[in-house]
């Protein structure tokens, strides 16, 4: 296994183990996701807007906000334990450090999404029998993009006093293209539309991922180094 990848996995493993011990990020984000889904149900007029129409948006707004909660908590916990200083002293190439943090954040957000999805199916009465793999694939595609940006911004705002407020302010504009793409694809998947109708959006999602994961990896060293 190439050294960089091994180091990335070590970094990710450390973060994931730490989170599994304290569980703060996972718990708060999961509860948050459930609450948002419930609110969506009550925040609409059932005679005017059917659950099916609202479903893709509700799912993705939930994912987006829960992901922010998870990422914010993950960095805050690390700062509270001053763990990052030890990590920076070790001779880990910054790209590997970023990859490790990205993998850990992806694991957190994926866990929250994995809990939110069944709740979503339950509350909104959605039939995923034909679209499950498509939804999962879209979730992976969209999540990678905004978690990459969130990892960079999370590392920055954790140094400030208003991290919980600043992360959404900074991150939300960056979540819009993946969100728009994800909602468009999800609504087509749920309506059983042909793949050709989704290709444009899927390409944007993929392009976004490639561009922003690369960019985030490149600028990460500017964020963690003195």
């Amino acid at each position, binding site marked *: 296994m190439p050294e960089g990848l091994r180091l990335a996995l070590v970094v990710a493993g450390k973060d994931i183990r730490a989170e599994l011990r304290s569980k703060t990020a996972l718990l708060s984000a999961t509860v948050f996701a459930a609450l948002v889904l419930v609110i969506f149900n009550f925040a609409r007029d059932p005679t005017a807007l059917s659950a099916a129409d609202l479903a893709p948006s509700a799912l993705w707004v939930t994912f987006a906000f829960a992901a922010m909660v998870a990422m914010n908590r993950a960095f805050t916990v690390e700062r509270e334990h001053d763990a990052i200083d030890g990590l920076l002293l070790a001779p880990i190439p910054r790209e590997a450090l970023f990859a490790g943090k990205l993998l850990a954040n992806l694991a957190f957000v994926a866990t929250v999404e994995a809990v939110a999805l069944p709740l979503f199916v339950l509350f909104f009465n959605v039939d995923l029998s034909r679209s499950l793999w498509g939804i999962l694939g879209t979730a992976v595609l969209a999540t990678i993009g905004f978690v990459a*940006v969130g990892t*960079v*911004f999370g590392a*920055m*705002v954790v*140094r*400030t*006093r*208003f991290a919980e407020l*600043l992360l959404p*302010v*900074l991150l*939300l*504009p*960056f979540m*819009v*293209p993946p969100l*728009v*793409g994800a909602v*468009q694809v999800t609504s087509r998947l749920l309506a059983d539309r042909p793949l050709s109708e989704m290709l*444009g*959006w899927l390409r*944007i999602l993929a*392009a*976004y991922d490639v*561009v*922003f994961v690369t*960019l*985030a990896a490149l*600028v990460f060293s*500017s*964020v963690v180094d*003195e």
Partner: protein
Amino acid sequence: MSAAVPPPSRDRARAVIRRGTVLSTIALLGIAGVYVLAAAFTPIEARQGVAQKIFYLHVPAAWSALLAFSLVGIVSVLYLWLEDPRLDRFAASSAEVGVVFAAVMLTTGPIWAKPIWGTWWTWDARLTLTLFLFFLFVGYLSLRGALHDRRERARFSAVVGIMGLVLVPFVHLSVYLFRTLHPQPIVLKPSAPSLPWEMLRTLLVSTLMFTLLYVGLVTLRYGIGLAAEAREAHDAG
């Protein structure tokens, strides 16, 4: 670590402030002239009526906001490469001035949209993009406000600036794809291929004045930043 840069002198700060004030005043007077030009010396557009004249403020403001934003992005890349604090000072000034122009655009836009398209807001490409620029500016300035170590603030701002610049094409693409699927109300494009000479002239003069105002305000804001740094160094030393 780059070599320490000597703090700016108060005299230099004052000189820059003076230059910025003069340029901005000239530009504002020029814009007042544009007001007169648009009101009295430019024909009324037949289909849109007098409200069309908002065009002569809205478009130059959009141009200035976009200019401000692009420069923040480009300067951010340069800063990460060269680590020159002057680049960071410029970026901060350009962002602040940019958010003001974006605000002008976002207020004149709906006031123009209502009589022309019957709705205060449309998710058309230009308004949507400006809204994004506005939020990106606000995020950039909020982050700067929360960071107090100068080098850290400069580095982090540069990261946001670069990522914001890269985001813009994606927003544009998403809006475009979104709109081809959900046709919006027919957009009356005032900038039709054959814009009468008087209208074109007013638009160009206005754009020139707005650009000059951008330069003047950024210079003024830059000078104020220099003065603050000079004061800090004086108090500390």
